[in-house]
């Protein structure tokens, strides 16, 4: 029986299995179709029905269940998530697991398409050390985005001493920045 207690381990293993089977294209399709629009369809329903409040509801529930270290900030135009201690990547680090070399990208792999379907743009950066930030918005201006960063204050992960560590991947409008 496959359980949820080591889910992140066999999830990571599955990414690599699919990559060997059908390349990165199959992995991206898996994140989008199986995770985004099947497994996490309750996220899309909340984003569509309640917008930014739905995001707060979704991540408040999910990250509390997963016992994450995080901060949610929002105004009427922008939703921001600062992740200080990702339980998922943290599990892999703690257990020395890395079947697939870019585990962190699975989040943007499903959140990006789901947010886009709900009419939101996604900006995101992760450091592969269990830390990341997200901003979901509808063409929000710099002032609204500065506001959520100020709300996050000392919990803005970009101010964390460990934030510069690791390899950073940054995405704008759901697409990787070169």
């Amino acid at each position, binding site marked *: *029986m*496959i*359980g*949820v207690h080591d*889910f992140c381990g066999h999830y990571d293993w599955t990414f690599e299995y699919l990559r060997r089977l059908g390349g990165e294209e199959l992995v991206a399709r898996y994140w989008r179709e199986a*995770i985004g629009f099947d*497994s996490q369809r309750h996220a899309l329903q909340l984003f569509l029905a309640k917008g930014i409040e739905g995001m707060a509801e979704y991540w408040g529930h*999910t990250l509390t*269940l*997963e016992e994450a270290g995080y901060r949610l900030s929002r105004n009427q135009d922008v939703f921001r998530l600062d992740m200080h201690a990702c339980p998922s990547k943290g599990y892999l680090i703690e257990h020395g697991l890395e079947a697939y070399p870019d585990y962190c990208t699975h989040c943007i792999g499903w959140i990006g398409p789901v947010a886009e379907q709900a009419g939101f743009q996604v900006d995101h950066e992760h450091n592969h050390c269990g830390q990341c930030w997200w901003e979901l918005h509808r063409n929000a201006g710099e002032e609204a985005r500065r506001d959520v960063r100020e709300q996050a204050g000392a919990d803005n992960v970009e101010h964390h001493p460990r934030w510069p560590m690791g390899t950073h991947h940054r995405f704008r409008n759901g697409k990787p920045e070169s």
Partner: protein
Amino acid sequence: MSSGDFYFAINATFRFIHDRFGMDGLRAYWRELGRDYFRPLSERFRDGGLPAVEAYWRDFFRQQPCGAAEVIREPEQVRIEVRDCPALRWLRDHNRDVFEHYCDHCRYVSEEIADQAGMRFELEGGGSQCRQRFISGRDAQP
């Protein structure tokens, strides 16, 4: 306690692989998962014997967010009486369509785990209630 919502992803993963690669592709995924990802678990079972099997499954069910099962160690086997499968309970309680072959993964994954540990695995039942047995010795007779 682990997040039960991860069952949504397990269910969706099985459906995704089945829809693209058919039942043979899904069985191949389960078998390789058992052989490769769970290799350290097979080694624990091989080294620790039935007490290690018993300890793993007791801990396993303690960490699932719902369901009910009894783990019984007998002289030649560990018997797991699943009274209320945690995965199916969570999926049904959250109104998810359970992938029609969901139960089959237990057989294919655990057969590989047991085989690599020098044991034999047998399963009876399904659909929320089943009996699973890890039996000492690959060549032990049923």
